[in-house]
């Protein structure tokens, strides 16, 4: 009797044990698509935001004669425990589904208006829905990672994201289980789940690379197109149209034919280079296919920025050593006062901290600090202007060591609408413990002041008389010395070695590291025995070029051992 994908219903026993739900006849049998009955064809159980009024269940009659709904009980299942079924609606004697037609039961906000308005209060997965027919037949539709077998038929369907419906595609699909019969879809109450002609831009597939290109520099807009219709789309039949929209107006980007032929269910990726003027843009991508029956899924958009944002990062303390907590310094580069509370701070994860605790707008060219622990930072730097020190909560904890990507983490500034303002992927390699990174000389480098310079620009450097300077020339055993450099290249690889008077290399205090043209780095002399040494500092340009080598003398004083 069953059309396929049949399993015996264990619900009766479960109900008997658990109680609380409507009774199911002891003779009941479950089917994934019961024969001679209307089928559950579409369910919207999780709307965007508040579900109230948006939920619906659509019955579809694939047969050539009307089928009654009298006595059918629509029940919601709570997958967190066995036997938790709750009656939501019962069909009346006058309710029926016309031949090849649909019958929608749903909330007051469903458009077009359902045949029966009911507040369904469906669970948001992993849960289930079932139709219990007067003749004992039961159709179960389960979704999500369910634990109890009574809540699905064959295998549970996917748990869709908010705003999407769970649709039987095609409307009379009967492949032996919920997982095969149902998939995520754009809600279509009262309409066929699979149109004859329907080309869609896959929601969320749009991407812009690089994420924040320089103005006028080509970036790639990519995405995916899917043929959701029942018929094939020939090559060149559809057009892809992109537009950039800003406050000042819109700019057409490109319009081209979709070059690939798409069979039903096929997807194809597209990539288009495009250059944007500086600013914030909505990139709108639309498909134009003659006869498309589902225009709602023909377009998608992406909010992007070309060029720098109004707020920029100038210093990052990701591994504080003095108990001041993590912090970042930002600068207003917009030319107009900025409200920091209108920005967010995040790392590579999804946590977005919102600034609070400071005072007033940040004036142009002014610096501010976003701190993990505002009070601790002010204790560590008591001279800071408290009005420009903000906390950001929740704080996106910044990683201290590099992973396989070659970076430790990212610091990301966004505007309140999510537009990227700046992303800095930072590396912890070569950065001494406790020393922040600061932006200078066109790159991120260990801060010129090891304690950091919150609310102050990087320390100005006095030009050196030589290429290298090791100071002091005399230090006590266990002390620290500083190697400063002033090189003719924008970036250089630098190292420092120590030799004794016999010419033997005794230590390499600084392994080769990448550095800007000017800078300095401290190094501990703790492992070096007292004595007189020759320092050998070397530098080579990043890339190719000749070495610069300089020697000097260093006295480490201490007692004879």
């Amino acid at each position, binding site marked *: 009797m069953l059309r396929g994908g049949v399993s015996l219903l264990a619900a009766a026993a479960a109900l008997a044990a658990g109680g609380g739900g409507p009774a199911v006849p002891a003779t009941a049998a479950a089917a994934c698509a019961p024969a001679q009955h209307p089928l559950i064809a579409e369910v919207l159980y999780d709307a965007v935001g508040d579900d109230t009024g948006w939920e619906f269940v659509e019955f579809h009659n694939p047969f050539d004669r009307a089928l009654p709904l009298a006595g059918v009980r629509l029940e919601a299942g709570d997958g967190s425990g066995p036997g938790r079924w709750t009656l939501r609606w019962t069909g009346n004697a006058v309710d029926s589904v016309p031949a090849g037609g649909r019958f929608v039961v749903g909330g007051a906000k469903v458009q077009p208006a359902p045949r029966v308005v009911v507040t369904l209060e469906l669970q948001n997965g992993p849960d289930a829905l079932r139709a219990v027919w007067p003749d004992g037949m039961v159709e179960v539709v389960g979704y999500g990672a369910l634990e109890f077998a009574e809540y699905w038929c064959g295998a549970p369907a996917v748990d869709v994201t908010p705003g999407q419906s769970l649709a039987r595609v095609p409307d009379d699909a009967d492949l032996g289980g919920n997982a095969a019969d149902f998939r995520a879809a754009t809600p279509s109450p009262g309409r066929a789940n699979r149109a004859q002609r329907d080309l869609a831009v896959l929601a969320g597939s749009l991407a812009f690379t690089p994420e924040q290109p320089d103005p006028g520099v080509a970036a790639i807009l990519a995405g995916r197109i899917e043929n959701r219709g029942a018929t094939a789309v020939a090559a060149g039949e559809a057009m892809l149209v992109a537009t950039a929209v800003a406050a000042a107006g819109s700019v057409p980007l490109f319009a081209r034919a979709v070059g690939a032929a798409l069979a039903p269910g096929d997807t194809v990726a597209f990539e288009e280079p495009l250059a944007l003027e500086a600013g914030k843009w909505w990139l709108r991508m639309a498909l134009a296919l003659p006869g498309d029956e589902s225009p709602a899924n023909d377009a998608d958009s992406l909010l992007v920025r070309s060029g720098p944002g109004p707020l920029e990062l100038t210093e990052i303390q990701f591994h504080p050593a003095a108990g001041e907590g993590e912090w970042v310094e930002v600068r207003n580069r917009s030319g107009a006062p900025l409200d920091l509370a209108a920005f967010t701070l995040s790392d590579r994860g999804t946590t977005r901290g919102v600034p609070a605790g400071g005072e007033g707008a940040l004036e142009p060219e002014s610096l501010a600090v976003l701190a993990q622990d505002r009070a601790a930072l002010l204790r560590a730097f008591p001279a800071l202007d408290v009005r420009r020190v903000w906390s950001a909560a929740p704080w996106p904890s910044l990683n201290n060591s590099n992973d396989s990507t070659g970076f430790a983490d990212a610091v990301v500034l966004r505007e309140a609408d999510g537009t990227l303002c700046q992303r800095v992927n930072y590396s912890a390699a070569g950065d001494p413990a406790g020393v922040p990174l600061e932006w200078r000389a066109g790159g991120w480098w260990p801060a010129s002041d090891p304690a950091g310079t919150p609310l102050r620009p990087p320390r100005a450097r006095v030009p050196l008389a030589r290429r290298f300077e090791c100071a002091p020339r005399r230090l006590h055993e266990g002390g620290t010395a500083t190697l400063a450099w002033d090189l003719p290249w924008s970036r250089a690889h630098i190292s420092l070695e120590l030799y004794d008077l016999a*010419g*033997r290399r005794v230590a390499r205090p600084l392994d080769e590291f990448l550095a800007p043209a000017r800078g300095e780095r401290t190094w501990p002399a703790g492992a070096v025995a007292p004595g007189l040494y*020759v320092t050998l500092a070397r530098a080579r340009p990043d890339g190719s070029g000749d070495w610069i080598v300089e020697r000097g003398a*260093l006295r480490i004083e201490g007692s*004879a*051992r």
Partner: protein
Amino acid sequence: MRAARIRRLAALAPVALAAVIALAARAAAQDFTSATLPGPASSANGFIESGLPPRHAGPAFDASYARWFGLPELETRAVACGAGWRLARVAAGFSQTGEPDLGWSAAGLACGVARTDGGAGLRAVARRDRSIEPGSAAAARLDARAGAEVGWGAWLEAARGLRLWATVPQSWSAGVAPPLDRPLEIGGEFERDGLILWLTRSAPSGGAEADHGAGVALRSGSLAAWALVRDRPLRGGVGLVASARRLFVAAAVESHPELGETVRLALGLGGAAR
């Protein structure tokens, strides 16, 4: 006439040889760097530096200058005089190394006994930093501004022309640490018909890898030349000596692949022949 001239030149040969040896500086020399070399000392500076007493008695005076690795802030100047009577040998000297904020002054004394086939001696060097910040902790404590070291050396002519030696310049030290750790050094040399070959090995403290050196010296009349190689890292040096009567003057350069050249100059009068 010719025979007399030859005799005079022959008499200068020990002086020239002493200079050659003096310039082929020890691997770990410091305060009295130019006055000693593998094997029994031939100058007052060498005796103080190694503790190996010269074979022959007699007055000697020598002055030396070294610029380490081409660094003007690292220069050593040393003067020393020595004397001997019968088996007894003695030498004393003074040196200064480095610019005031880095360097130190040193006074050295060595004494020992020696015959033509062997000898043993003690050496002591006291140092004082050239610059101590007034009022600093170092200024208030003698052991923080001065240091001393005592060591010994001994050599033996094991066979005709073959000499072996061992020296430990820093058997004991106190106060400010010496500028260079100088471990046990052992060596041997073979001399015949104006040709000298030598090998040295020094074992650093702390179990580090040993250093090795090898050299060759050739002399002809009043001129002598030598060359040496050392390891860790591999490097070499050459030198030239000219002598007249009891006076000698010499220059030498040793090249380090990373640090550059160390230049030594020496001027001496007298000295002991081996």
